[in-house]
């Protein structure tokens, strides 16, 4: 991909997350994308014929669809200069002992095994194109909870997989959904049976190691009636001078009375294009919550969506976007009310500094006949200096009269008087600015489990280092 000069890397990122292992893989396709490569990926995975057909059809769609002209600048992506499939190990490990030493060390540095022991119900760790480690607590397994890599899900639960795969986000949805559908690999497959509540989070961690690669994980989550699950994903990548591409598709089905919470802490290095399609369908009295923290990447275009299909469904998107130098966060949300008596809430907090650009792009749509819907949208932007930019694009498509829709947007600059007040109490300017920013995102952060709230605040501190006023 392009090798333009290295952009500013967020202070501290390089040493903490930006390292990389010597490249090692058991299999790698050559650079570029065509039918042959897609077929090679599918054959290598020993997939059923229907999946190969699905991939090839998606490739055609990808090739036909033009690049989006809205959002961020995608013109620098050279789709023929990417490795689409890099297989790190020959098989998935169920014990960290069986993960190759280099990779294990990487995940140790990122604190994944430690977190697993302390507060997680299950962990998947993806390294380049494949999941190298996967484990779920036995007690959950016994209750019928399925937590596998998506590839393993296709192998072990072919019927369930085929029933739902691609139903929420068809390949034709957008160019990057088509791309993912053609070359997907890794990601998570989750099924939570009726009435089962998974009360501690399941986590997946995505790590890119190889230079010039694309990571295309695919996640499918089915939460059966009255069940509950909280899924958390984190991601980082080495700092390279050329760009990488991350393009995931996440489909979620939340059945009657169920609840799903999906938390993302996106911390890609500043050379990653992060172009992700995430969508959930929520049935009667179901609740879907997206908590979306975007701190890293060069460009993120991501608008987690909820389609409320039956009465009583509720959707929430709480999002934080932080753009520093050389970063563009085009983040947002979509709430689509397809049935009466559904409700949605969107809270977006965007912060830009050092010439970064962060914004909210969102849609609230109410279909004809979806009476008595309620929706509130709050988007607040905080701009830390005059070089930075914030954009708000709130779209509303309301086809029904009997609805309650609220929208509030604020844009503020970090206040000199606020800084002065904190400094008058002995707090230095850098820390004072970080405290103001932490306060600004607190309504979202307080929704996170404690461990992630701490992590989020720590990442924000990291972002704020070296930034004065």
């Amino acid at each position, binding site marked *: 991909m392009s090798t333009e000069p290295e952009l500013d890397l967020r202070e501290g990122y390089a040493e903490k997350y930006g390292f990389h292992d010597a490249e090692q893989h058991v299999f790698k396709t050559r650079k570029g994308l065509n039918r042959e490569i897609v077929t090679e990926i599918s054959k290598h995975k020993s997939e059923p014929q229907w999946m190969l057909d699905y991939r090839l059809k998606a490739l055609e769609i990808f090739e036909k669809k033009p690049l989006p002209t809205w959002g961020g600048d995608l013109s620098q992506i050279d789709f023929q200069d990417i490795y689409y499939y890099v297989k790190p190990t020959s098989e998935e490990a169920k014990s960290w002992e069986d993960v190759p030493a280099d990779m294990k060390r990487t995940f140790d540095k990122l604190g994944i095994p430690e977190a697993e022991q302390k507060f997680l119900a299950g962990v998947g760790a993806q390294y380049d194109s494949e999941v190298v480690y996967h484990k779920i607590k036995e007690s959950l397994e016994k209750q019928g909870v399925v937590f596998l890599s998506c590839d393993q899900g296709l192998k072990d639960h072919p019927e369930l997989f085929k029933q739902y795969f691609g139903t929420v986000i068809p390949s034709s949805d957008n160019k990057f959904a088509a791309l993912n559908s053609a070359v997907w690999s890794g990601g998570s497959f989750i099924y939570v049976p009726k009435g089962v509540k998974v009360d501690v989070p399941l986590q997946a961690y995505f790590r890119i190691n190889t230079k010039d690669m694309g990571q295309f994980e695919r996640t499918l989550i089915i939460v059966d009636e009255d069940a509950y699950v909280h899924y958390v994903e984190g991601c980082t990548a080495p700092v390279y001078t050329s760009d990488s591409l991350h393009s995931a598709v996440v489909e979620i089905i939340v059945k009657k009375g169920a609840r799903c919470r999906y938390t993302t802490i996106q911390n890609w290095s500043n050379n990653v294009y992060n172009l992700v399609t995430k969508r959930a369908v929520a049935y009667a009295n179901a609740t879907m919550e997206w908590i979306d923290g975007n701190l890293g990447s060069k460009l993120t275009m991501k608008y987690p969506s909820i389609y409320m299909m039956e009465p009583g469904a509720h959707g929430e998107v709480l999002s934080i976007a932080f753009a520093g130098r050389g970063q563009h966060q085009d983040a947002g949300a979509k709430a689509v009310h397809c049935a009466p008596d559904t409700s949605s809430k969107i809270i977006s907090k965007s912060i830009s500094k050092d010439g970064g650009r962060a914004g909210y792009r969102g849609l609230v749509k109410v279909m004809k006949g979806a009476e008595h819907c309620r929706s509130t949208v709050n988007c607040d932007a905080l701009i830390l200096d005059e070089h930075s930019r914030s954009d708000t694009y709130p779209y509303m498509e309301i086809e029904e009269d009997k609805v309650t829709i609220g929208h509030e947007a604020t844009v503020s600059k970090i206040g000199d008087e606020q800084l002065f007040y904190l400094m008058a*109490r002995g707090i230095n300017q850098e820390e004072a600015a970080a405290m*103001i920013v932490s306060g600004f995102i607190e309504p979202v952060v307080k929704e996170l489990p404690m461990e992630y709230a701490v992590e989020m605040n720590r990442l924000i501190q990291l972002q704020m280092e070296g930034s004065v006023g």
Partner: protein
Amino acid sequence: MTGDLLVKGLHVSVEGKEILKGLSLQVNKGEVHALMGPNGSGKSTFANTLMGHPKYEVTAGDILFKGESILEKETDERARMGLFMAFQYPVAIPGLTFGSFLRAALNARLAPPTPDGNGAVPTKKGIPPKEFRDLLRSKMAMLKMDETFATRYLNDGFSGGEKKRAEILQMAILRPEIAIMDETDSGLDIDALKVVADGVNALTGQDLGVLVITHYNRILNYIKPTRVHVMIDGRIVTSGGAELAQQLEAKGYDWVREEVASR
């Protein structure tokens, strides 16, 4: 002349307009000074200049704190040296709890100075949480504040009285050497004023010098000044004992203006 806070011939401009025109004042620990003056005389400019607000430009004169000029020091360094200002209009910082803010401030104040003498860089460790909670609880009891106060967002939705009490609470915890109280009495009813004044009185002593800036005599019924200064048009025109405040109360500021004019 030495003094804990020594202001010498201070001239200050805001956006090119001169507000302070040669103000001199000395406040020592153990003393309570009242600086009185009508609206627009430059009282708040003076308070903010002492604290180093970037909007105020010192064009002449000097401010010495503990024998050292602080004109080149940032606001946070001044605070860590032991200078404090109770704000007339404390700003709200939504999302930042009062408790965590105050703990960070105390840690900054307690942290040892850095070798370059620029004061401290706050450390993440500092005072243990339990010790801090106990300290906070005792000082809040003194100011008759509810314990839930610590979990509220800083000055966010505080009533006028709560804001002023919160300022005094910060002063009680941070234990400055010189405290400037910028119109702390404004907007307070008599009960709140008493609580605030009691709080200040409990803190005064050999280790603290106080400069009470006020328009009215009212607060001086509760906080007894050792010296009273009258400020008009950017300088101190007359100084005296506590009786001067009573004269002002009885006769207003015009009397001072006339006296200054006839000199």
